[in-house]
């Protein structure tokens, strides 16, 4: 270990000892959870490109910085307004990793819904204690060791909640590099239906590292619509881990929209752990400048008769780089699996690039799995067709990019969220707004 690395690691160890003296550190199971995670983190360090799962994503810029625990902050209500949504069933605002009661709206929770913090999450923490199968989970361990607060949402059996829950994590920058460690647990009870929007944004300047961990569990027959919207600044680092566990005949439909971050990464795991569970993982990532965005998904077909659908799309300009790795595991018992995966990327500049890889691991014999990838520029024939009808070159380009993104965004049920996502994509790509 080089001296520099040792110094950085001792900085994290010292920060941990300081944290230990605060009430937020917790006791018993939580304390154990933190200590074990820190031990693993200090022993393993951040991943390198020698780790198979991080081959194309060099996180050295993260490792070279020592991120301290984020300071408590109280951003202006008006400054965070653009990060909120109207018409949600509740809005939970997490600032620098801590729930802000003042900024959150929790009074009008629908019947059957409870929202709690760390105490209710203790049992879940125990369940997520074990590190997963030898992977480098440094970022998850960083969250496990240092998280300041947790959001725990529970929906009682047979409850139907129409309007989405919105959990928004806001990074408030200052002069020091800060780490934000949001933790979110959502349980959907048997036969219940709900939708969740988790979003990530920032106000102010300053280097931040967000390492978010989200655990979603669906009881039998439950339905969860999930949207993840990441719109952090171009100087932010964003690493997120989402685990969804699906029981028998439950339905999970997720749309992940990635727009920000100097380096951003989503690791999404969906485990189809009951017959007849159905999973849809869709997403779109838009990157430009000198940024890197990485999506790793794993759909684990553990039981029989489960369909899964996956469409991921990328739009890349400037010198942006993207990584897409779509793993589908079909276990021996998972007969009659039907899995479909597509990754498409639009390269808007000569210097943009993507590494895309489907990864199918199939141990059952009576299954249907398809995958496809398509990387390219805007369709020249379509461009000419539009122009030959009088539509300007710029409008034609806008129309085609819009259509490309629309296919993914159309899966978002809440109008305000879908429209905002499209607006943000248009803004990012400097397209004319369609609304």
């Amino acid at each position, binding site marked *: 270990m080089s001296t520099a690395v040792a110094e950085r690691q001792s900085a994290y160890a010292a920060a941990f000892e300081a944290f230990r003296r605060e009430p937020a550190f917790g006791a018993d199971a939580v304390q154990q959870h933190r200590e074990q995670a820190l031990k693993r983190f200090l022993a393993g360090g951040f991943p390198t490109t020698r780790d198979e799962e991080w081959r194309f994503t060099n996180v050295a810029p993260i490792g070279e910085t020592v991120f301290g625990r984020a300071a408590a902050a109280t951003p202006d209500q008006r400054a965070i307004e653009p990060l909120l949504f109207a018409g949600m069933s509740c809005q939970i605002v997490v600032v620098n990793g801590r729930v802000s009661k003042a900024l959150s709206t929790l009074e009008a929770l629908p019947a059957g819904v409870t929202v709690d913090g760390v105490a209710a999450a203790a049992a879940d923490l125990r369940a997520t204690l074990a590190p997963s199968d030898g992977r480098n989970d440094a970022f998850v361990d960083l969250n496990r060791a240092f998280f300041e607060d947790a959001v725990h949402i529970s929906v009682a059996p047979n409850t139907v909640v129409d309007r989405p829950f919105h959990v928004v994590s806001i990074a408030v920058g200052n002069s020091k590099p800060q780490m934000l460690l949001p933790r979110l647990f959502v349980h959907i009870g048997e036969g219940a239906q709900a939708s969740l929007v988790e979003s990530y944004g920032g106000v102010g300047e300053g280097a931040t590292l967000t390492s978010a961990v989200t655990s979603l569990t669906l009881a039998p027959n439950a339905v969860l619509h999930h949207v993840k919207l990441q719109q952090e600044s171009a100087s932010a680092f964003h690493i997120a881990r989402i685990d969804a566990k699906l029981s028998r005949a439950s339905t999970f439909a997720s749309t992940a929209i990635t727009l920000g971050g100097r380096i951003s990464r989503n690791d999404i795991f969906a485990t189809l752990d009951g017959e007849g569970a159905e999973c849809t993982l869709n997403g779109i990532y838009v990157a430009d400048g000198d940024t890197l965005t990485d999506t790793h998904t794993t759909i684990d077909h553990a039981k029989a008769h489960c369909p899964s659908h996956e469409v991921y799309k990328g739009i890349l300009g400037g010198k942006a780089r993207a990584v897409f790795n779509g793993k589908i595991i079909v276990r021996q018992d998972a007969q009659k699996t039907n899995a479909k995966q597509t990754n498409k990327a639009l390269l808007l500049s000569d210097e943009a690039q993507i590494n895309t890889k489907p990864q199918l691991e199939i141990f059952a014999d009576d299954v249907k799995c398809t995958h496809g990838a398509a990387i390219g520029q805007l369709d*020249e*024939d379509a461009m000419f*067709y*539009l122009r*030959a*009808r009088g539509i300007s*070159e710029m409008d034609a380009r806008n129309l085609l990019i819009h*259509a490309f993104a629309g*296919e993914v965004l159309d899966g978002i049920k809440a109008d305000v969220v879908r429209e905002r996502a499209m607006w943000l994509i248009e803004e990012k790509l400097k397209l004319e707004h369609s609304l």
Partner: protein
Amino acid sequence: MLLEIKDLRVKAEGKEILKGLTLSVPTGQVHAIMGPNGSGKSTLARALSGHPGYEVTSGEVRYNGQDLLAMAPEERATAGVFMAFQYPVEIPGVNNSYFLKAALNAKRKAQGQPELDAVEFLQLIKSRAKLLEMDQAMLGRAVNEGFSGGEKKRNEIFQMAVLEPRLAILDETDSGLDIDALKIVSTGVNALRSPDRAMLVVTHYQRLLNYIVPDVVHVLTDGRIVRSGGKELALELEDKGYGWLDAAPAGARA
């Protein structure tokens, strides 16, 4: 003259296809361009619409007195030039009627007219859809996506009916059409014949010209117009093929 082409030379994929083509079409007339495969018919249509794959190496094209070749494809379109594509392009995710509204309003804007509002636009496309016996459901679908060959061609003429061009270029609109579809498309085209409009109908077969009767027929072989005549010329070609023209004097060159 609405369209005047003088000594036009065009290359595609590095090969010269049009080798000095000269042709004039006055307003109010329908001219047919016939010729064997590879003679340059579609190259002419695409070069006139500004397709980037076709390089004009020399010659001149004046449309309504303007230098057509100096105009971008969208400028040609908004100035009233319309090409019905031989192979209409499928554009997933772009709604047919949204696309058409954008096209129509681009043209109206370029011509200094106010944009149509949603109600006016809907009335217009409904009446035009009726003319082409188009299923309303097609308007809500993505542009040409999943359309049959016949539906695509019908959609081209439908767009033409909505955009009301001054110069319509039909590139092998009859190819791939069965007789019923051919009749519907022809009815649509004939309804748009007008003293203010000219049409250039590119076709390989005389069959189409039974339904869209041209004022003048031009024969294109090896990149040049080798003969021009009345509608009887099309019948003569049907009867004798194109071979006999090679031996004939080129005096009739327009």
